[in-house]
């Protein structure tokens, strides 16, 4: 892992790109580092692409991969769609797919590896099934084909509860106890800083519009190999959920990561690289 000192510049660069997502103009912020096989990284619900900054400063990754992460509309430095003030933000599978494909087209990414975490892990299952010719491989972090709702998401967006505070406190337990304090709180900041209703709107996709149990068995892993990695402390997408999903996808590989939770790449980057580097070795040979 990189050890930066005062005065050092990181190799990450950030830019904006204009897209059309399902008929709506969007201005997306993205960051990238490295060169080689494109590795498109999709952030969790309610956060943004900063979750992948450690991968982008890991020379064992960037020496072989062009690591790219964009912020979905409403997230991070990407603006919400114009007119957001009069709408309830609700992400759907259709919108999420459209955003990823529009971004790949805009950057002319040639068969990238797509890696997503949590809801990003959910959508990579869809992408592997719907567009296998467009992706070299799919890596699902904290991914499963379905999640049983386990709390009332109305708490995440109401005027008598601070949205950022409650979102961060809700997800705080999904970080493993072994994760370093600095990175635990950095991960929580993504939620503390999220826009009103954004996490809740993402969970519409995660909970209501992405039950893929009836189609994951159709994924052709000879066309788009699938790798699933889930932290043992994740009680949202549980190891059991991931293993069940992997069992349904012929040829999929799954591994449960010890001492990690729901945000492996940001909560404990040193531990995560022990698990992700072997997977990246495999996809680089595809």
């Amino acid at each position: 892992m990189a050890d930066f000192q005062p005065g050092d510049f990181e190799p990450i660069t950030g830019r904006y790109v204009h897209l059309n997502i399902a008929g709506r103009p969007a201005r997306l912020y993205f960051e990238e580092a490295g060169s080689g096989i494109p590795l498109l990284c999709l952030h969790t619900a309610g956060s943004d692409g900063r979750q992948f900054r450690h991968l982008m400063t890991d020379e064992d990754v960037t020496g072989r991969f062009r690591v790219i992460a964009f912020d979905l509309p409403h997230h991070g430095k990407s603006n919400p769609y114009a007119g957001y003030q009069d709408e309830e933000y609700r992400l759907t599978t259709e919108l999420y797919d459209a955003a990823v494909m529009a971004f790949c087209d805009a950057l002319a990414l040639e068969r990238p590896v797509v890696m997503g975490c949590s809801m990003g892990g959910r959508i990579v299952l869809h992408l592997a099934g719907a567009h296998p010719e467009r992706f070299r491989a799919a890596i699902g972090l904290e991914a499963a084909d379905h999640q049983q709702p386990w709390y009332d998401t109305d708490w995440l967006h109401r005027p008598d509860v601070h949205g950022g505070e409650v979102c961060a406190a809700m997800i705080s337990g999904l970080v493993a106890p072994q994760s370093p304090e600095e990175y635990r709180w950095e991960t929580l900041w993504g939620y503390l800083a999220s826009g009103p209703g954004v996490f809740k709107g993402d969970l519409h996709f995660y909970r209501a519009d992405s039950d893929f149990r009836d189609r994951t068995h159709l994924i052709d892993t000879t066309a788009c190999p699938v790798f699933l990695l889930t932290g043992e402390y994740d009680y949202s997408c549980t190891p059991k959920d991931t293993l069940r999903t992997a069992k349904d996808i012929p040829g999929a590989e799954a591994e449960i990561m010890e001492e990690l939770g729901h945000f492996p790449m940001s909560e404990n980057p040193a531990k995560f690289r022990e698990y992700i580097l072997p997977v990246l070795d495999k996809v680089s040979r595809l």
Partner: protein
Amino acid sequence: MVKRTIHGGPPAAHAIEHLADTVHADPALLHRGRFVDLEWLWEIGETPYHVRIQNGFIAELVRGPVLMRSWVFAIRGPVESWERFWAPVPKPGWHDLFAMTRTGRATVEGELQPLMANLRYFKDVLAAPRAMEDH
């Protein structure tokens, strides 16, 4: 001096006895709770505890049952759940209040708005015994 239980955390009686001292020794926690002013019920196994919070301080902690005493919300779980939760490095499924509610190892009920509005504070109060020394 207290020994940890076979479940990993301090014995429940010790944890409750020293809860206020542990909470009051943490200025960041008190700051998080500065707007909290209510009474809640913490049930540890068969034993109910009425915890009255004033501006983040534990103003009163009464071992129940106390008939007809009101509370805003209740958090309940078996002794084993809490002692596992208080382990210095809890095992998966016992490491967070919601990990325990999702798996049926604890329950939360009542008027939840004050809990949710101050969730970080209450999670930290619940977890405070984790920091108790075992020597």
